């Protein structure tokens, strides 16, 4: 009997307690079919690309085979045809997508790590520290980011993937820092932060154990959307010829083949798949980001 009662209480409890964290996000995705579809699509896409990239032999694909020049899709095992130098487009697409995604992830992690840490420190301490870093951020934001990245890349004699990641990340942390700072500024003046102080908790622990989780709704959205942005920046730079060196395929370099008018007009299989992949991925990530944003705001929630 006693046991029975306890069970009923537990049952009622689980029904009556409001959904938290992950549950809210899940409900939002269940309500929004497009976001659910995008989420599954984006995850599938990334996983497929990563798995195939491991299987595919990059050296073999990048071999120049003049006999296979401009092979059309579907001919002789070339699923998406071959380019000017007879290299398999499908293989290039997979490796390019892998490179682009990995670079975007690395930039996102690096830039957001710096942005979030700095934003929380600024918001928590306020005063001089806040002013000092805000002026630096203001300065960075007035700079034409893309131009500077291009100039830096031109100056550096030889650069690889790591350099590219660092350079782009160096210009991407400001907006996150500003956003986090504004939220942290209001959140850090709340009573529970003072209460934590009266327990003798150190500033560091308060900032990253107490304050950070309370900004998580904002951060999830910010990180997701900035990931989409970073894919765009990397492909854009590569397209302009300032991203990855031509020997390393990325979605941007593949699209940049379209700068050749002949390829643009008659060899669609060289540039269209990469363009479509970028479009689909960006759209998908943005739909996911939108759903997360709604989940973070009780007024906009659908579920």
């Amino acid at each position, binding site marked *: 009997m006693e046991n029975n009662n306890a069970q009923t209480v537990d049952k009622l409890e689980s029904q009556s*307690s409001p959904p938290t964290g992950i549950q809210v996000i899940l409900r939002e995705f269940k309500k929004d079919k497009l976001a659910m579809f995008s989420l599954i699509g984006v995850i599938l896409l990334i996983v497929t690309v990563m798995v195939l990239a491991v299987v595919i032999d990059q050296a073999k694909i990048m071999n120049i085979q003049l006999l296979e020049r401009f092979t059309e899709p579907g001919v002789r095992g070339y699923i998406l045809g071959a380019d000017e130098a007879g290299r398999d487009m499908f293989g290039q697409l997979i490796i390019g997508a892998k490179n682009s995604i990995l670079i975007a992830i690395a930039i996102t992690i690096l830039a957001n790590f710096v942005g979030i840490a700095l934003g929380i420190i600024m918001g928590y301490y306020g*005063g001089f520290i806040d002013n000092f870093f805000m002026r630096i951020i203001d300065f960075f934001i007035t700079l034409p980011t893309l131009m500077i990245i291009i100039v830096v890349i031109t100056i550096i004699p030889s650069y690889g993937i790591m350099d590219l990641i660092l350079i782009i990340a160096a210009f991407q942390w400001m907006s996150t820092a500003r956003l986090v700072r504004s939220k942290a500024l209001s959140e850090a003046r*709340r*009573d*529970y932060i003072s209460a934590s102080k*009266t327990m*003798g908790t*150190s500033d560091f622990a308060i900032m990253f154990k107490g304050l950070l*989780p309370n900004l998580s709704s904002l951060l999830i959205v910010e990180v997701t959307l900035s990931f989409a942005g970073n894919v765009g920046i990397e492909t854009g730079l590569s397209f302009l010829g300032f991203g990855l060196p031509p020997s390393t395929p990325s979605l941007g370099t593949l699209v940049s083949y379209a700068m050749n008018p002949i390829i643009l007009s008659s060899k669609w299989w060289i540039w269209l798949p990469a363009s479509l992949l970028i479009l689909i991925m960006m759209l998908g990530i943005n739909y996911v980001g939108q759903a997360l944003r709604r989940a973070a705001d009780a007024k906009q929630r659908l579920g």
Partner: protein
Amino acid sequence: MSTNTNELLEIRNLRTSFRIKDTYYPAVDNVSLTLRKNEILAIVGESGCGKSTLATSIVGLHNSINTKVEGEILYNNQNLVNLTDTQFNKLRGNDIGFIFQDPLSALNPLMRIGEQIEEGLVYHTKLNKTQRENRVLELLDQVGIPNVQRVAKQFPHQLSGGMRQRVMIAIALSGKPAIIIADEPTTALDVTIQAQILDLLKTLQDEIQSGIILITHDLGVVAEVADRVAVMYAGEVIEEASVVELFRNPKHPYTRSLLKSIPQTNSENEQLEVIQGMVPSLVKLPRQGCRFSSRIPWIPQSAHEENPELHEVAPGHLVRCTCWKEFHFEDEEGSVNQ
């Protein structure tokens, strides 16, 4: 009245000033108070009189950018005013516990109850994980929370107001502090829960023998639990006495007006007594003369002291200014000498 050995906390000439447009205005002005062991010292006064500022000054919660704390707060031969954050962190939570007014906003919404109570134990004790967990359950049990196992795993929004305040008390008690500062602990609660929380505070105090500074604007609460009372007005202590003395024999016009404005169920007069005027703002507050004079304009200026000081009118009973001698309520005729 008591020997020095019983003194836990001694506040001497404390002045906490806020910066408003490059000028510092004291919100707590020259306050001296003593807290003894196993005593509940109530600090009462209306909104804006500096009660909470005083409390937050003791635990060093003020932002040094726009606040200046001067004077001495002596605890264990240390002046708390001069401590660095690192030094203070050793005291806070361990020697001094703080109970906030609104338990909902003072609990981290994304941390489980158990974790929040554990926080102080992590910093101040050498207990291991299981010992800490047991202590958390013990504390929750001590503050009268049923089904401790479950509550420890819940989030603050899943508890009722009274339960949350009990959790706050459990957090404050976790380090068995010598001093507990309770900043209006019952204001956010309804009356029945208030009584329970006050009873709880009193019982727990008997157990751990700590001194409590109870900040409140509710004289009913004061009468119920306090041993000694300090009445604050506009940043100054204007009267200090034992609770019996204060309620039987209030001297200062402000204290008397406060006592008169408590709603009474048995009074025939349906109009609630009010003190006319408002507490002057921090910027406009007259820094000289009796600060209460503007709210009792029918008392001649000559009755006030030029620089009002605390006078001992009876053993342990301090009153600021001399205006109480000539004070009478506006609707009364002539002076009533007490």
